[in-house]
């Protein structure tokens, strides 16, 4: 009944036995115990469950766990480098990019996916990149500002390194 699934989660190889009907969000939250990604609508409309598969944002409620065989999955728990927060997380903190925090893990991962493809997005492109994520608190303005700020910080960091 259960099948063995091998995949990478936040850089760590995992081998787990899962039922075919288990969704990726259920595997991550209920079986592995990472509760960053949230179950909001459970229908691919709210983005609270957003994780990255091979660097691209997906709704993890709409993926069967067995579908990530051999793939690399990132959740919000993998964003920080040890105690050092990711620039996106720092910007969300500094710029007030969250209130209740329920949508934040999904917002951060959607933003990460956007910045992977487009390191210097315009406000319009950020809005477009977040179109799959709902927030019921802040009205989005500070979230969008935070992502814009994070992109600037990352550009500066990248500049310093090179």
């Amino acid at each position, binding site marked *: *009944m259960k099948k063995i699934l091998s995949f990478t989660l936040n850089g760590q190889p995992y081998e787990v036995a899962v039922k075919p009907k288990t969704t990726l969000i259920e595997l991550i939250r209920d079986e592995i115990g990472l509760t960053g990604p949230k179950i909001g609508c459970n229908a691919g409309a709210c983005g609270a469950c957003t994780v990255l598969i091979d660097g691209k944002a997906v709704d993890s409620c709409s993926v069967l766990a067995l579908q990530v065989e051999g793939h690399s999955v990132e959740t919000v728990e993998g964003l920080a480098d040890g105690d050092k927060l990711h620039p996106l997380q720092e910007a969300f903190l500094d710029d007030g990019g969250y209130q209740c925090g329920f949508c934040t893990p999904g917002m951060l991962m959607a933003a990460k996916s956007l910045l992977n493809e487009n390191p210097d997005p315009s406000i319009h492109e950020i809005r477009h990149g977040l179109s799959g994520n709902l927030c019921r608190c802040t009205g989005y303005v500070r979230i969008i500002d935070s992502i814009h700020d994070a992109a600037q910080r990352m550009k500066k960091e990248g500049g310093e390194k090179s």
Partner: protein
Amino acid sequence: MSYPAFRYTAPRTTREVVETLRIAKEKGIRANVLAGGTDLMPQLREGTTTPEVVVDISRIPVLKRIERMGNEIRIGAMVTHAELVTSELVREYAGVLSEAAKMVGSPQIRNLGTLGGNVVNASPAADTIPALVILEAKLVLKGPEGERILSVTDFFTAPYQTVIEADELLTDIVVPLPPPSGRAVFLKLARRKAVAIARMNLACMLYYDRQKETFEWVRLCVGSSTPRPVRMTEAEKALIGKPFSTEVLQEAGRAAAEQMVQLSGLRSSTAYKKPVVGDLVMRAVRMAVEKG
């Protein structure tokens, strides 16, 4: 999750998929093909689809290719909407399909959902289908007896109904290169700009000869408004050979609206859709001509 259990298999070749489907059909086992999952997963959750076996086709490399073969572009059924948006080949030769794919769902949905899934799910509101209709795309179905190739307009029979057999797999969507003179437009009307299901959508491609001041050819398809996707032939006829003028556009809009009512009958939405389809056709044709 509360839905019933199923068996899961992820074949590595299309031949294995077809064989699995054939055996399931023979034994009377309900099998569903899983592509991107953006339609199937909600159906499983709602209990509207209750497979005994799910056949995941995401591990078959050949279904993910986009390649030019002579005068055609071959797009594997597992190519995602996001890939249609970024593919240089698709943007160059079938730009209207890129435009349509860009309108689907959200980034998260476009990264999962596939062209093959959008076609086989056969929602009357699917965004890629009107684009495929005006591109005169063909569908390659692989079954136990071999392949058959169908025109995209012959594939759909009714909303969510197609001619695909239980033991057949859609492997490729083949797009003949449209004449380079063509200018294309895709429009979508929905309740909001993102993550919305089309109330109406439209794909249009045409060539307007500026010297002769006539429409040389026109291809028009309006989605979400007819029981199965068809070309708006009456509107096309109203344009071909005519000059670009307000009267001609209005006539084309009227013809499209009348054809829609003829095909769909009078429905509760007709009072809204009839004037809107006319305006949408006029807007799309004007935009395509203005593209030069």
